[in-house]
């Protein structure tokens, strides 16, 4: 029974990732695409947790931390790039 719930949840999360991919492709502005990419990265964490529960192994749990950190850093870099035009500023006084 739990296996069935886990598999249905995995299918639901994957379908929602596909729906977010539609927004990444079509989104009218760049922040739309970045928001959808951030949500895809966070849904990827859920997919990893569900797969590690279905396979009954705790080997993939480091990947959750890694993907979470990478999604956050990517979104922050995109936001800074959109706002200022550069990510790493060399001139601190400006």
């Amino acid at each position, binding site marked *: *029974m739990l296996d069935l719930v886990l598999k249905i949840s995995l299918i639901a999360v994957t379908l929602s990732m596909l729906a977010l991919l539609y927004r990444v492709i079509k989104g009218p502005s760049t922040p739309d695409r970045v928001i959808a990419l951030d949500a895809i990265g966070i849904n990827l964490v859920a997919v990893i947790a569900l797969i590690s529960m279905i396979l009954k192994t705790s080997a993939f749990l480091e990947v959750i931390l890694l993907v979470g950190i990478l999604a956050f850093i990517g979104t922050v870099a995109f936001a800074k790039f959109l706002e200022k035009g550069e990510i790493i500023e060399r001139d601190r006084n400006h």
Partner: protein
Amino acid sequence: MTEIIKVFVGIFVGLGAFLCMVTALGIIRLPDVYTRNHAASKGSTLGIMFILIGAFLFFYVKEGHYNSRLLLGIVFIFITSPVAGHLISRAAYHTGVPLWKKSVLDELKDKEKHEKHGLDRSNGEGK
């Protein structure tokens, strides 16, 4: 694994998957960037935290000790996901993405203008 914990894991995971689908629906259907960002940052954070709490209970019963990596993941996502949403929303406002035409309130508009004037004045005095 005891049955009652299985029921709780099922409830948590089902709620989390439902919230993920609500997030996807909001991102597709809502009209502009800010409302979409509202759907993405709140809904998907809560959904992922439900799924991770379900996984935490699952592995706690299966292995018999706390899984610190999952706890770290829950705390990290709880902290960083709203921050990322706020940052990208601020970037969208500063790059001039328009609000939905039926939006009734833009509290940041006068404040932005005021801050820009204040900044210009201080620069002029500096020179």
